[in-house]
Structure formats: structure tokens, C-alpha cells
């Protein structure tokens, strides 16, 4: 469904991405591994339209969309989270999720303003869907809390919820487990597995911690200094000597 072809990007003279190609099939959960500075986030930003690569093509559902802007990418059904949690801190958890659903909402201004007729029905429908996500992520207790006041682990969970609210076809997760304790990591793993399994959402997630992702991804790609050095089943990648070299000293196995 997503085909990234020969992507290159540079910050000044530093090559962040060098001819990276990766392919995601519908329903797959793919992990993109790499040490800090390996180009993982750059790749994700390119896919979600925040950066435009100077070389290469990104094809989604058969259409070239290398140069779309972030809102247009979102409209295609690609949702993402951020490495340093980007929630709407002043809004409640519920409002954050409802905002995530904006793209699914349409309708007349006037009716909305009056909260009348179809607009009211629509609001209620979306509210019901969002409540479903809240149940799924087990965040019922904090739905009215301002997102900015939550502990970090919960913020990441809410951010995942906001991405899910858009009912994405492709979900991009930028280090969803970073900075979490073991328990929170396990929860997050479970949610990611469930999203992939129950909703059939295609997932691409970025991690630098090898151990965590092996269990939850169908496939693992490894980036090193902007180049892809491995791509395959978790077991196979784990044994790959090139990957071992790249990870020497930082392996968690």
C-alpha cells in the first residue's frame, strides 16, 4: 500500500537519508530500527509530508504523493504520533480525540452552530466512536482531564488515541515506547498489537530499542547512517551480521 522508493534527504551536508526504499503491505506491522541519528524520524516526516525529500518517490495506494503537505497526507488516511508527544495540552482528553476526528466530520456551519438536526446527530455519532477508542485504550478515568496535566506515559497513549480517532489506514508511530517504564511499555505493545489485529490498521513504528519491537512486528527494517542495511522477518534481522555490527554495544539482547 505504501511504496517508498530511493528516498534521499539531507540537512546541509549531512545525509539523513540515502537512497532508502521500503515497502509496506496492507495489514502489516513494520518496525523501523536504528540508532539515534540513523534517519528514522526523517523517513517518517517524509512519509507524513512534514519534509519533502530532495530525491525519491513516495507512492501511497498507487498514487504518487511525494510532495503533499501534512493536512493532505492526513486526508489520505495516514495518521501519526510524534516522538515528543504533540497533544493539544489545554484541551481535555476527550476534546483531543474529537479533534482527531475532524477529518471525518463535515456539514453545515449554521447547523453546527445551532447544534441542531444533522449536526447534532453527527456530533453524537462521533462522540460514540471516540468513546469506543477511550474504552479500547482504557483511559475512561481521564477523559475530562486536560491532556497537559497527564503523566508522560498516558500522554503517549492519548496521542495514539487521537491518531486512531481518524480511522487511519496507515498509522505511523514515532518511538511510541520511548521514556516509558516496563509496565507502560507492555501496555503500549498490547495496544499496538490490538490495533493491528482488530482494526487491521497497517502500522509503521520507529524504535531504537531492538528488544521491544521484535515481538510485535511482522517485519523489521534497519537504518544505519541514513541507509537501509536490513529488511526482513525479526528473527532473520536479529541474526544479520551487518545489524549486529551497527548495534554492537547497544544491543539489548
Amino acid at each position, binding site marked *: 500500500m505504501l511504496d517508498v522508493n530511493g528516498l534521499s534527504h539531507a540537512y546541509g551536508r549531512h545525509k539523513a537519508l540515502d537512497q532508502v526504499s521500503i515497502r509496506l503491505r496492507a495489514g502489516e506491522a513494520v518496525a523501523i530500527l536504528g540508532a539515534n541519528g540513523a534517519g528514522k524520524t526523517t523517513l517518517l516526516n517524509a512519509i*507524513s509530508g512534514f519534509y519533502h525529500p530532495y530525491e525519491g518517490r513516495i507512492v501511497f495506494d498507487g498514487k504518487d504523493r511525494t510532495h503533499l503537505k501534512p*493536512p493532505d497526507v492526513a486526508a489520505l488516511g495516514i495518521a501519526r504520533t510524534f516522538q515528543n508527544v504533540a497533544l*493539544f495540552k489545554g*484541551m481535555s482528553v476527550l476534546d483531543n480525540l474529537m479533534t482527531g476526528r475532524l477529518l471525518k466530520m463535515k456539514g453545515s456551519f449554521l447547523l453546527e452552530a445551532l447544534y441542531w438536526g444533522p449536526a447534532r446527530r453527527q456530533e453524537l455519532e462521533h462522540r460514540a466512536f471516540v468513546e469506543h477508542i477511550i474504552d479500547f485504550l482504557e483511559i475512561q478515568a481521564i477523559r475530562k482531564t*486536560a491532556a*497537559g496535566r497527564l503523566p508522560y506515559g498516558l500522554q503517549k497513549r492519548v496521542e495514539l488515541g487521537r491518531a486512531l480517532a481518524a480511522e487511519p489506514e496507515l498509522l505511523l508511530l514515532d518511538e511510541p515506547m520511548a521514556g516509558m517504564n516496563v509496565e507502560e511499555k507492555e501496555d503500549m505493545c498490547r495496544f499496538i498489537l490490538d490495533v493491528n489485529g482488530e482494526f487491521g490498521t497497517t502500522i509503521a513504528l520507529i524504535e531504537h530499542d531492538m528488544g521491544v519491537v521484535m515481538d510485535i512486528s511482522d517485519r523489521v527494517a534497519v537504518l544505519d547512517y541514513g541507509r537501509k542495511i536490513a529488511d526482513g522477518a525479526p528473527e532473520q534481522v536479529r541474526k544479520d551480521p551487518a545489524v549486529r555490527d551497527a548495534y554492537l554495544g547497544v544491543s539489548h539482547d
Partner: protein
Amino acid sequence: MTELLYGIAVAPFKDMAGSPAFFAEVLIGGVFAGLMYSLVALGFVLIFKASGVFNFAQGAMVLFAALTLVGLIERGVPVALALVLTTAVMVALAWVIERVVLRPLVNQEHIILFMATIGLTFFLEGFGEMVWGANVKKLDIGIPDRSFIVAGIQINQLELSAAVTSAVLVAVLAVFFQRTRIGRALRAVADDHEAALSIGIPLKTIWMIVWSVAGIVAIVAGIMWGAKSGVQFSLSLIALKSLPVLILGGFTSVPGAIVGGLIIGVGEKMGEVYWGPLVGGAIENWFAYVLALAFLLVRPQGLFGEKIIERV
């Protein structure tokens, strides 16, 4: 000493009780003045909510809108048409601001955007004068500046219409922000540009909308203030008067702007009439700022503002 205490704590209230009709007039005068402050404060709140920018140029926008309107009317354009044209000019201005000022500064520090709006202030003041001239102009929109008497209380017709207009405008905006999809998108953009983009909110469109709305609010404020005290350069300075209103009401709250405006308006008039004589009068001009300062000590986020805890 006792005399002073008497003057502060007893005499004013005795005066109020002694002449209720006069008290009511002062009160109403305060409410009307307050609503006019609210109108200007509203423009600030709108832009602050949607882009996190403190738009220093709001006062200049009021001046510019009023100048444009008066200029058109002076050249023989019918009032209704002049209003439509002025609205078009303000929307066009919003478009230009988005393209030339805001877009190149996306995701910059708020202070940088703030400084850009200071630049915008000088530009608008200069540009307005260049096009329409610097003379004080009279704005006549057909509402007579007359007074009538209800139950022994004198009410100014112009001030009354200003009050009603503000009330309607505020109600519409409050509903707009709380109830609509676009309102929610506006709040999202204010909170985090990147995140808003990632869930499909087009920043450009939102900014364009919000600056247009602020422009239209500026027209209304410009008309009201212009009709009251003439269209002149000092209109730009009423922006400063709305600062205490914002501090009181909270920068992010539409109802806050209204309540803040009322408190300032009423407080000012009451202070001047009943407590002013103690210090020889003329406290109206600085009273609001003292009130705002006192407020900052107790509730820095204002009456209705959002208290956001930033984790560092």
C-alpha cells in the same frame, strides 16, 4: 485617618444609596464603556486562541477599518456598500498577513510572531494615513448621538446600540468557538501547530479565517469608537486599554473578554465618580491598569483563562 477611611469605605456607598438614579446612570455608563473595551479585547482573544500570537496590531486594525469605512463614505459611497467593501478589505488584509507575515514564521517562537505584529502595527498606521489622510474624521452611520430617559435614567442611544451590537457579536463568536468543527480546529491550531497539521487541519485556512474574523470585529469596534469619538489616530491606542481587560478575563476566553471588559468599564466609572474625589479625580485613566496588576498577583491566568502547566 478616620476621615480617609470614611472617604474610602463609607461615603461612596452613602452617595450611591442617596441617589439611586445617578448610581444607575454611572453603572450603565460603565457597562457601555466596558462593552466597547470588550469589542477590542475580543479581537485579541480570537487571534491569541487560534495562533497563540498576541496581536499587537489589533488596535491598528480597528483604526484601519474605521479609516477605510469613513474614507469610502466621504467619497460618496453609500453606507451599506461601504460596509461591504470595508469587510472585503479586512478579509484581503487577513489574506495578505497570512501570506506575507505568518506563513514564513510558522513554528517560530511566539515572541517572534509578536514582534512581527508590532511591525504590522506601524505599517497599518502609516498605510492608513497615506491612503486616507491624517485628519480627524467624523463617522456618521445614522444612529443619532441622542439620549432618552427611561424611569428617570438617562440612556444614550448610540451607546445602547453599541452595547447591543457587542452582545450579539459576542454570542455569535462564543457559539462559533464552542460548538463548531472549525472552532475546535482553531483551538487545536492554537495549542500545537505540528499536531494540528498531522491530523489534517490546514493551518493556512484556519489563520486566514481567524484574522478575517478579527478584522470584522475590528470593523465593528472601529464603527462604535469612531462614532463616539471621531476617527483619529488615537483609535490605535485603545488597544492598550484592552490589555487590562485581557489580563482580567484571560487571554484565551471569549466570555472572559466580555466579563473583563464589563469589570474594567464599570470599575473605572465607579472609581472615578465615587472614589476619584479623594485623590483629586482623574483616576479613570490608570485605574484599569492597577486593577489588572492586582489581579495578576492573584490569578495570573485571568478569570476564565486556561491554566496550562508546562512540563520542562
